[in-house]
């Protein structure tokens, strides 16, 4: 089992892919290490949200992803 990290919108370009599988469990510090410096810099900005297991985290730094969880990195949206 592992944790899946999903890159949405422009973050997928920066990551050169839509998904990354890493060994779990994974906390915020572990996530920053797993995604590399460019993505880590982006997702630390307030405007980027993080979801885990289908729920957006109120405080992304409290991330505690377990094996089998999906983490989504959500940059500013533009719908409509």
């Amino acid at each position, binding site marked *: 089992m592992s944790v899946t990290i999903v890159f949405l919108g422009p973050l997928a370009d920066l990551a050169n892919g839509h998904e990354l599988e890493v060994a779990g469990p994974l906390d915020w510090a572990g996530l920053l290490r797993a995604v590399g410096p460019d993505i880590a810099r982006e997702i630390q900005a307030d405007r980027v949200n993080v979801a885990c297991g289908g729920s957006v985290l109120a405080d992304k730094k409290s991330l505690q992803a377990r094996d089998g969880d999906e983490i989504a990195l959500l940059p500013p949206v*533009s719908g*409509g």
Partner: protein
Amino acid sequence: MKLLCCRRLAVARLTLSTPLDVRVLAKGMSVGEASAAFSAAYPEAGGIVSFLGKVRPGNDVRALELTHYEPLTKSGMDDLARSALERFALDGILAWHRIGVMVPGDAIVLVAAAAPHRRNAFDAADFVMDHLKSAAWFWKRERRAEGWHWIEPREADYQDRQRWERR
């Protein structure tokens, strides 16, 4: 008589759920059919307002692609539609949003609100659109001659949404 029969058939081909009909559509959007079915679904409504958002031609835009995050998109749109229903005392609301690749002129989003009186229907459609623009889980990019460009929300989009927080 024949015409009446056909009109009924056209409406019956599309069944809407009431009072909320929220969809994320991977292809096509039957705007006319949806509007007819929506009107038929709320015979008691005194007013229906609908908004249709389309891919704008110009700026060398060849195509527009909408992506989303499936685990959040539909449930977020359901919550938005439900809050509009309660806030504006609507009879019903429809919110359809496209994903995938579209070309100029294609429909991206359709919102319709049915209410006893027009003002609530106007406000509800406005409210839902302001939230779909900058608070729903969609990302938009345009293909121009030299390649793809991500579209960032404009400051005006955030301000439009914030109007509803002050009320």
